[in-house]
């Protein structure tokens, strides 16, 4: 348990021998065409099964299972809440005598507030205040509320604007993520894809009241409206129909290669791990919402010992004079695993982001694939 907690952001420390790690690293870093343990191409995702609207008590829900048995369920619930400015914000316009009380409740009521979206992640084996669940939920929430409106009114755009009912009332959204299985690999792609699907299937009851009245809703669930409007026909799409929930992709770099959706063994030898959140912009293109580095687990691995340093191999290899340089452990002996050190070059980061964002790239492919899941 304590071991699990210290390896917070890096997920679990892999139980692979230095020789296995070295073998994996070599095959994944082959220039041009990495060989992955399960035979996927660098940009290919693991096969998954998905279904939506599985929980009748929620506004929207989804389940995704990967072929390796990891499964996640997400439920989205919405509540109506009165809008109040919190105590730490003091609107200077309160002082302005020419300002009437009505217009002063102002911008928070129009553009929404990030705290209206609450997210909790439950991962078996972790307490809810452990680093990994907290880090994951902050990462997914920040891209969700970070996306802003398509136009100046803010209503058509990001999630925050959609939650506004009128100046005095808003929706509060609870997103509860449940990982049903042990986290066999870093659970970010699974949780992010499931959350995306659940938000796509989320419906809010149709509003019957108008303007600044207290909200009053149609009790016919059949006429409820999607939180993210679906495009019924592909012919005419208003800008707001392009807006989709963000999806966070896990990308690793090994050598010169950029690899998507790594499984547990692959992430164990990664040089750098990035979580990149993207969503569809107004024009249908992709836009970047956030990037975070994740501590690569390869820093925690055990180093291999080259034959020249191995006591059991004394005499079997020719003695070397450069014992001094070996003590610093800086040089690489080919085929002997060294835990990764240091960080990532800027060019590598740029390359990873470019692979995600480019037209017809992985980001678009993932968003299209999720769109294809039939929302019942």
């Amino acid at each position: 348990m304590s071991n699990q907690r210290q390896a917070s952001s890096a997920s679990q420390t892999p139980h692979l021998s230095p020789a296995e790690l070295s073998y994996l690293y070599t095959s994944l870093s082959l220039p041009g065409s990495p060989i992955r343990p399960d035979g996927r191409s660098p940009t290919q995702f693991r096969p998954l099964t998905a279904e939506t609207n599985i929980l009748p008590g929620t506004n929207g829900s989804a389940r995704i299972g990967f072929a390796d048995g990891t499964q996640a369920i997400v439920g989205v619930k919405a509540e109506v809440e009165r809008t109040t400015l919190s105590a730490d914000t003091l609107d200077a316009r309160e002082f302005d005598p020419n300002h009437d009380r009505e217009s002063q409740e102002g911008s928070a009521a129009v553009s929404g507030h990030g705290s209206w979206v609450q997210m909790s992640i439950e991962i078996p084996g972790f307490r809810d205040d452990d680093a990994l669940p907290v880090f994951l939920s902050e990462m997914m929430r920040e891209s969700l509320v970070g996306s802003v409106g398509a136009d100046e009114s803010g209503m058509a755009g990001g999630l925050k604007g959609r939650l506004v009912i009128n100046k005095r009332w808003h929706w509060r959204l609870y997103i509860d993520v449940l990982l049903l299985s042990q986290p066999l690999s870093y659970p970010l792609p699974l949780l992010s894809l499931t959350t995306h699907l659940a938000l796509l299937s989320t419906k809010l009851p149709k509003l019957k009241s108008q303007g600044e009245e207290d909200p009053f809703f149609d009790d016919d669930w059949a006429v409820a409206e999607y939180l993210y409007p679906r495009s019924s026909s592909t012919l005419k799409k208003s800008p707001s129909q392009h807006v989709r929930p963000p999806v966070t992709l896990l990308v690793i770099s090994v050598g010169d290669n950029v690899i998507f959706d790594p499984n547990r063994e692959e992430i164990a030898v990664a040089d750098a791990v990035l979580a990149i959140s993207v969503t569809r912009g107004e024009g249908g293109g992709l836009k970047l919402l956030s990037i975070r580095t994740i501590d690569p687990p390869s820093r925690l691995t055990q180093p291999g010992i080259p034959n020249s340093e191995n006591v059991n191999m004394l005499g079997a290899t020719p003695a070397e004079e450069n014992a001094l340089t070996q003590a610093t452990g800086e040089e690489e002996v080919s085929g002997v695993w060294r835990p990764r050190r240091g960080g990532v070059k800027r060019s590598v980061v740029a390359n990873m982001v470019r692979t995600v964002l480019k037209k017809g790239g992985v980001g678009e492919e993932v968003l299209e694939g999720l769109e294809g899941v039939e929302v019942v």
Partner: protein
Amino acid sequence: MMADRRRVNGPSGGTRPAVFASLAESGTGVSERAQRQRQPSELRKIFLKTGLIPTASGSSYLEFEPSASLAAARINPKSLIPPSSALKLACTVHGPKPLPRSAAFSPNLVLTTHVKYAPFAARKRRGHIRDASERDLGVHLETALRGAIIAERWPKSGLDITITILEAEDDRWWADAPDSHDASWGMMNVLAGCITAASAAIADAHIDCLDLVAGGVAALVSDEEKQSSAAPKLMLDADPAEHRSIVSACVVAYMPARDEITELWLKGDSSKASLENGDKRSVHEALLDGAVDAARGAHTVLAEAVRESLLKTVG
């Protein structure tokens, strides 16, 4: 809710000092936003000193220069509300020390980071128990430092890094209502300060590192009333209290000697932003480069502070 039942806590809601409308109307400048006096690429001055906490194996104290308006308000206070705040934090390093018997074997140094805002650090009171944002900061800091420390030289040992934030940055100007770009931008400046201070404290504790890792922030800010009228500008080390809204911001932990980034945190929707003419980089690349430049600036201060601490131990 994580309520702390062992201590007598203050009211959860909190109150504000009274501001009289007459004061605000009389144009004394109380309700005027602080203006950035620095150049876009100019950082705030940093005060960094190591070894102030004798019981710890390494420690450091970091302070950002208060903005001009804050300095003026301190000399000649016109209101009970300070116009902006400046970062102050203390960092202690305990270890390397043996892991507890119950812990599993580790071939590397086990790093534990703990970031805590003092209850009085921000305008709104913080509880004694770390909340989600403080834990999140702890993970970011751990990622930044783990890349720099040569961990395999201390098998079976642990290193505790504790940061107490005495005064935090604001997320926006205190009199602004949150707008659509609102997020916890102050946290990013705090993280950059944490990285720089922790790096100095680790050097003070004589723990082997690849390089001194420094933190830097760059942000795209828009100061216009109308967001669409002008392109947002790239500012290094932006103080959120000085700008109308921040479109996007980026923190890095950077090691100049290796030209490598150990921690990168970029957030904000910069899709509609554009750079000046002739700049071919995409917006996120420009942000990243800006943050690296800011980190280079912080690194010079860091190197000087570490040299000072070394001279103190030698002679």
